[in-house]
Every structure is written in structure tokens, then in C-alpha cells.
């Protein structure tokens, strides 16, 4: 992978955005959590820790089944809660991947971590295993908000975790924040963002609390519990954007801000329609021109891998016009937008596309189509999905 000097390049630069398409990356899913948070709809399990050993072997086996690829530029362990998996198991999986593909020099290796799991010792062992980047599920610096979210940590845990990660040598630290939790005021959110900035982390992700179907949160809302207020969430988003920009963070995707040199390469690759391997239950990847998804249920996943088979739940080749729309679909979430191409041409020729342009939701300049109002990205995405090769 060749990019400009990685420490100074702006996270939202078009060159960075487009060059990430040629990165080779992989995602590893770790489903184990201490408890399932009421708003979460990821592929997670709680109270099944006895399966961790089997799961490690299954991951290694699945990695072994993957087709050859060049050395990986980035590796991402997401969850679930990878930080509960144990440094040895994580190191074992990194090792299996190294054996299968090798890691490119200076490869980015991220894990998601819950602050309450983090210790200086764990941090040190992970650095030794090759991890370079950590993403903490901080969510908020307001105790009432953390309680409302059903989290198991408090604000001081986040501060301690960030300090330990930095001391032990993590090159890049991210905080995930959630805004719009019912009861959270704009002032409380301001304090959360300011606290994140004060910690001088390298990267911040701000997610609007989403009521996902089938979660305890959605059942509560159906029974009359307060739902997030989209207008307040819009205010909160705009406030975060303002505060983060003033502190030198650059928004490079709808929900992601980074200091120069700290954009997440794995994320950039996915949004650039780059190919990525995926391992673990519920993991989804993009290889050999096809998007694929693994079996989501843990037991079924384990059984399939133990039978020596690839644990796929679905696979769909993306080619021709679909591939062009797919490129726009993933790429338009970026601040850099997408480079011109047949899809952009069709968009500009379509009725809905022209309307969005007129309304200033998108702009077309310097050979790129960009969403200028990130909060309305899905309105643009829906228009993209309706495009046909010849105009609307």
C-alpha cells in the first residue's frame, strides 16, 4: 500500500480515501460479552465463555481455509468484546493470520475493548502480540447515561484505560461515543465530547443511539419508554462536529473523526470498496468480487467450521452496474465522497439526484460527488439504489 506520509495526511483527503481501495484487510469477530447491552444487535453472546477455546480453534481453522492473499495491511478485531477474550487467544489468532497471509510492515492491528476490562498488563501483552490500535467503547462520560445504556463501566475507567493504552505503546486510540440516549441533554453531551477531547485521543466515533429491531430497547420503546429524539440527535451531532473540528479532528466519515495520520485504515478500505476477509460468527466480508456473510448463530458457526466447511450464510457476487452502485453506496459515507464514474453520471442525470444537488445535500466538484449534509446521507443512498445505467 502506498500513501503519502501517514502522519500528516488529512483523514478526509480524496487520495487517502481512494488509495485505501487497494489495501488488503481482514475482520475478526469475537462475540463474547459479559452481558448483552439492551440496545445492541450485534452477533453477541453472554454467559457462553466456556466456548472461547473452541471458538479460538474455529477461527484458526477458518483462517486456514481462506484463499491465499498478499500480506495484510490492516486487521480489525470487533465484537462483541474482544478485550474479554484474553491476550493469549487474541495473540493466537493474530499468529494464525500471520501464518496464513503475513502482516505487511507497519500493519494496523485494531481491537475493540470495553474500558472495564482494560489493565496495563493486558495492554502490554496486546502490544507484544502486534496490536497497534485500540477502540474503547466509552459511550459517554455521564454516569446517568452509562447507567441508562446498561453499561458496566464508569467515566474514570475510560480515563484509566486510555492512559494505560498510551503508556504501553498503542499508536492510535479511539473512543466510541453514543449520543441521543433518552434523558441525555445537549449540555451533558457537550461534557462528554469535551472529556474525550481532553483525553487527547487520536480518533473519535460518535454514533446516534439507534433503536434496533428485536432488542430489549426496542421492546421498551414499543411499550412506551422514551425513544431517542431525532431533532435533539441532530443538534448533538452538529455540536460534536463543531467541538471536534475546533480541537483539530477531521471528520472523514459520517460518524468518524480523526487527527491527521490517524484515520482507521481498515475502515477506509471498507468504504473504498476494498476487499476484506472476515472470520468468526456473523462476520461479513468482501472477497473475489463477492460480499459474503458468515452464520450468525455461534453454535451453528462452530459446528460448521468443525465439520471442515466454510461457515457461509450467504454470498452475493457484485459486478457490473451493481458494483458501481455498491462503490457509491459505501463511498458516499466518506467526507471525501466518490470519484466520478458512470454511477455519478447517472445520479447527476436523475430527477432525485438533481433535487438533492439543488437542495445542497450533495455537491459535485473537482471530479467528485460528496454528501455535504452527513445527517442526510441515507436520503442520498436511497437515491443511489434507484439508479439505472441510463439516468433515472
Amino acid at each position, binding site marked *: 500500500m502506498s500513501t503519502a506520509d501517514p502522519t500528516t495526511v488529512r483523514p478526509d483527503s480524496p487520495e487517502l480515501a481512494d488509495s485505501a481501495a487497494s489495501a488488503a484487510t481482514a475482520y475478526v469477530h469475537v462475540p463474547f460479552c459479559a452481558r448483552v447491552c439492551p440496545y445492541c444487535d450485534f452477533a453477541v453472546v453472554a454467559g457462553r465463555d466456556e466456548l472461547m477455546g473452541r471458538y479460538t480453534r474455529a477461527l484458526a481453522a477458518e483462517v486456514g481455509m481462506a484463499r491465499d492473499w498478499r500480506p495484510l495491511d490492516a486487521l480489525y478485531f470487533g465484537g462483541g468484546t474482544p478485550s474479554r477474550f484474553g491476550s493469549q487467544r487474541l495473540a493466537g489468532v493474530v499468529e494464525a493470520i500471520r501464518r496464513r497471509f503475513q502482516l505487511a510492515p507497519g500493519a494496523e492491528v485494531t481491537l475493540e475493548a470495553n474500558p472495564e476490562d482494560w489493565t496495563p498488563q493486558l495492554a502490554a501483552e496486546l502490544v507484544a502480540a502486534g496490536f497497534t490500535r485500540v477502540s474503547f467503547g466509552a459511550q459517554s462520560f455521564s454516569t446517568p447515561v452509562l447507567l441508562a445504556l446498561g453499561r458496566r463501566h464508569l467515566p474514570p475507567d475510560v480515563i484509566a484505560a486510555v492512559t494505560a493504552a498510551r503508556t504501553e505503546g498503542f499508536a492510535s486510540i479511539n473512543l466510541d461515543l453514543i449520543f441521543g440516549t433518552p434523558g441525555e441533554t445537549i449540555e451533558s453531551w457537550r461534557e462528554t465530547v469535551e472529556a474525550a477531547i481532553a483525553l487527547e485521543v487520536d480518533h473519535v466515533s460518535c*454514533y446516534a443511539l439507534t433503536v434496533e429491531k428485536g432488542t430489549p430497547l426496542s421492546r421498551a420503546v414499543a411499550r412506551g419508554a422514551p425513544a431517542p429524539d431525532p*431533532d435533539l440527535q*441532530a443538534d448533538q451531532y452538529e455540536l460534536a462536529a463543531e467541538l471536534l473540528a475546533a480541537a483539530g479532528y477531521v471528520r472523514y466519515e459520517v460518524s468518524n473523526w480523526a487527527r491527521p495520520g490517524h484515520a482507521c485504515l481498515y475502515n477506509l478500505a471498507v468504504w473504498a470498496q476494498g476487499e476484506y476477509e472476515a472470520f468468526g460468527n456473523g462476520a461479513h466480508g468482501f472477497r473475489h468480487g463477492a*460480499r459474503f456473510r458468515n452464520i450468525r448463530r455461534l453454535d451453528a458457526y462452530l459446528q460448521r467450521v468443525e465439520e471442515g466447511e466454510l461457515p457461509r450464510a450467504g454470498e452475493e457476487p457484485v459486478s457490473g452496474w451493481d458494483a458501481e452502485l455498491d462503490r457509491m453506496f459505501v463511498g458516499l459515507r466518506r467526507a471525501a465522497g466518490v470519484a466520478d464514474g458512470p454511477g455519478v453520471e447517472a445520479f447527476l442525470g436523475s430527477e432525485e439526484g438533481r433535487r438533492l444537488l439543488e437542495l445542497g*445535500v450533495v455537491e459535485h466538484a473537482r471530479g467528485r460527488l460528496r454528501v455535504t449534509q452527513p445527517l*442526510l446521507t441515507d436520503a442520498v443512498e436511497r437515491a443511489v439504489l434507484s439508479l439505472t445505467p441510463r439516468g433515472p
Partner: protein
Amino acid sequence: MTPQARIRNFSIIAHIDHGKSTLADRLLERTGAISEREMREQVLDSMDLERERGITIKAQTVRLHYTAADGQDYVLNLIDTPGHVDFSYEVSRSLAACEGALLLVDAAQGVQAQTLANAYLAIEGGLEIIPALNKIDLPAADPDRVAEEVASVIGGEPEEVLLLSAKTGEGVDELLERIVSDVPPPAGDPEAPLRALVFDSYYDAYRGVVCYIRVVDGVLAAGERVRFIATGDEQDADEIGFLTPKAVPAASLGPGEVGYLITGEKEIDKIKVGDTVTTARRGAVEPLPGYAEPKPMVYSGIFPTEGDDFEDLREALEKLSLNDASLVWEPETSKALGFGFRCGFLGLLHMEIVRERLEREYGLDLVATAPSVAYRVTTTDGQELEVRSPQDLPEPAKIAEIAEPYVRAMILTPAEYVGTIMELVQSRRGEMGSMNYVGTERVEMDYQLPLAEVVFDFFDQLKSRTRGYASLDYEPAGYRPSDLVKVDVLLNGQPVDAFSSIVHRDKAYEYGKRMVERLRELIPRQLFDVPIQAAIGGRIIARETVKARRKDVLAKCYGGDVTRKKKLLERQKEGKRRMKMVGSVEVPQEAFVEALRVDR
């Protein structure tokens, strides 16, 4: 061919839900017309919509064989009719094919408005009426009181009123005997040229138009060449037969018999319900009286969501008209909705049913505009116009006079609710006529009211004020000049013709205010602020704003499952297809009816 002396033709008539279709079940069972395996509740309600709503929409005819106590075999032609006021045209057509009517009254509810209305139709038609109480199994049944009421309405003695339970079957044997003894046999002339009344029809994709006929004089033989007197259309009688309720072909239909006729005619406009069928050679010249054209009470625009479906909609309306003789329609153009049809209906339920049938039976996706009555306008240059759509109303300066349709409304109610009903009627610009007792506890109130005040939510109001005890029937009662104005609605500064309506001046301000409030709730947030205004002749009388949608993005973390996210957005897009673009504003299809469904 059955001798006329052995034929009895009768309709079952009643107020809605008094148990006509359930009684028909018992009659079908008792006469063996239907096997146990085929039996289900209200088996004659065969349309999906009828079964879902639990009401009869179409009259259904069926031929029964009955061996009476006198040892003779009889053919009974039963017609089950709908009870809802919107379908009274079905009742009057059915009665024209019969010599008798079974007047059914719920023994708990007693005589209701459509009991009276339908009884009068039968009396006017010179039919023999057999009065009967149904649901005597109910604990709340009060047969003595209700029998008194019935006797006071149609004359006769309370003791002559039959007691039935369509649920348990009690009284059904006695009823069958009464039908044989009381309903006069038909008295057609078998030697005269053929005259058969087309009292209903429908379109079959394979066989073309199927006519339901009642032979009055002469004999119709299968294969014979026939002529429809009004349209002059000549065809071969490819197949004739009886409905048992299945179609069973027969060699001939004689005087007094009821059955079907298939000629293979596929040109829909060649067949008219109410026309007379005769033989092509030596046929009758004088048609049967036929039917009075039904007078629509309300009009509404029906438009295809997709403009290219206009021709499909026309074809669907033509076919549906065959099966719904009360439906009238003409092309209409709307700036907001494009090309469609202005349709006339007998009421709001009728309107709803027609729209649903068009969508379900013909696979169309439609937008309907708010219903309106027809106004009569005299212009300053002396022209007389009928205005069926608010958008056709001339400019105020060109109007010399507007008159609106009035109805004579008959309300039947327990005496204790008279006060609250008077209040309601006054707030609807009603004028009191007479008031009479029916039996000892119930009152029949007569009013003159503007149709526009009755047709929309009056009935709901009446029901809620009287805990469901009052019933209502109404009939046209001419036009009267009124102080009416057109209230327009502007979306994003542009007038939307489909949202205009004509209201009384005194109510216009309040109406406009409610209308924009309602629309603010119905119109989803867009990518920009959408002002909604109500105006009378350019003067804004109310305003609301749908604030712009500020957030339309899902916060999916890291890369995200691209396929899943795409599917989610695809589904959201589907939802949008139920929207109509009006200028640059997306308006949900329901809004066109819902917005004007405010009480006036």
C-alpha cells in the same frame, strides 16, 4: 322448466347485521342446497371483502328445492341482500325480481332505520311481506315489544310475526311453509314473447359478461338468439342455467324463473343492468320497466399512483361497473394527481369498497381524493353548472348562486336521546320536520339537512351520542341556495387542487385551521421546510409548517454489513412508493382522503 305455481321468488331484507345472510345459511342447509362440507358461516358472502368485514355488499341469488308439508315440490329463489344504506340499490334491484320479501328484524335491537326504508321499498314494489324476528335466542331479545313495533310499521297483527333464530335454526321450518303459503307465485305469460330482466351481471375473464336474469314472460331456451332491447345487442344464449349456488346449466328458463345467461359478449358496454332480454326473432318490443338510475351521493377522484396505469384503471372501472350498477364515473384531470376518474358513489362505505375492489380485483395502486357532494352553480352569465369536484368551482366573481343538495333524513331512536340528537342536527344546519312514535319507546325523527353535513361523519356522531342505539336513513330532497366558499390548500406555496373543498362560510375558518393541522401530521418531514396554508380566494386563513427532516442516516459502526444496510434502505424506498410527488413535496396517498376526513 318449473310451473309457475311451484315457484316462489323472495328477497331477505333487513337493517344491517340483523342476520339475513345467517338465515340464508339455514335455508340452504335445510333444503340441502349445500353439503355440510361446503358450509361455512354466511356462505353467500363470497367476496373476500365481505368476509373480512362481516357484511354483505352484493346481493346473492340462489335456487332452493323444497318439499312442502302439502307433499309438493317447490322451487324457491332466494336473494340475500345487503343491509347497509350505501347498498340499498342492490335491494331495490333484487326486489324487482321477486314477488315476496322476508322482512327480518333483530329481536333485541328492534326496528331500525333500514328496516323501515327497505320495508317501504317492498311495499312500494307491491311485494308480499313476511315479517319475522330473528335472534330470539339472545338473552336481550324482547320479541313482544319488537313484534308490536313491526306490526305498527307494516300493519297487521303482532301475532303474525314469525319468531326465528338463524343461529339455532328455530322457526326455520315454519318460515319455509310461510314462504310457500304467503308469497304469491309468479304470474307471467308463458305464451308471450320472451321478456327477462337483467338484474345483475359480472365480467368473467374467460366467458365474458355473465347476466343474472329473471324471466317475466315467455321462455328462454339454450342456444337461442337473443336481443338486449335497450342496447340492441344480439347474441346467442351460449349457456343458461340456475345458481344453486353453483352455476348449473339448464335447457330452458320459463316464466318466473331466476338464473344466469352467458352469451360470450366481451364488449362490456353492450350489457346494461336493468335491460330486458328478448328473443331476436318475434321478440318483445316493449321492455320491462327496468330501474331508475341511482343518484350518486358523493363524488371522489380516483387516480392511478403510476400515471401509465390510467388505461388499466378505465378497463377496471368498466368491468367493475357491470357488477356494481350504482357506480358512475367520468374522466377527470388534476394538476396534482394527473389523469384519473371522477366517480360517484352512494356513500362513503361504497366509495371505500369500490376503491378496494379496484385495487384487489384488478391489481391497481390508487390514490383517492376526499369525497365531495355535487353543487349546483348559477354563473353570472346565467349558465347552470353541476360541480362535482371543488376544483371545478368557478371563481367567486363569476358565481351568481351556489346551491347544495339536501336530504330528508330519518332517524330512529329511543326517546331518551331526542335532546342530544336535536343538538347534533342543529349544529349541522338541519331543520326539524315531524316526530312520531314507533311502538311506545322509540321515536322517528324527520329532518331536512344539507347532504354534505350528513354524508361524512354524521353517522359516527349519531352513534356515539346515542350509545349506538339510533339509526339513520336518508334520501335526496332537492337543492337549496347556500353561502358556500371554496377553501384551497397550498403546499410549499403551490395550490393543490386535490385538497380543495367547498364549505359553508361560517365554518370555513375553523375548517381551514383543522385542515392544515391535520396535513401537518399526515405529511412526513421532507428535506426542507414545507409550509401548509389554507386560503379562501387568495386570502390565507391558516398556516402550519412541516419542519425539515434533519436526520436521515443510520449510525452503523465500522464497515457495516453492506448487504443488510442496502436491504434496509430498499425497504424504506418501497415505503416511499406509497407517496405521490406533489410539486417537490412527497405526500402519502392516504393523505388525500384522510386530510379531509375532519368533521365539519
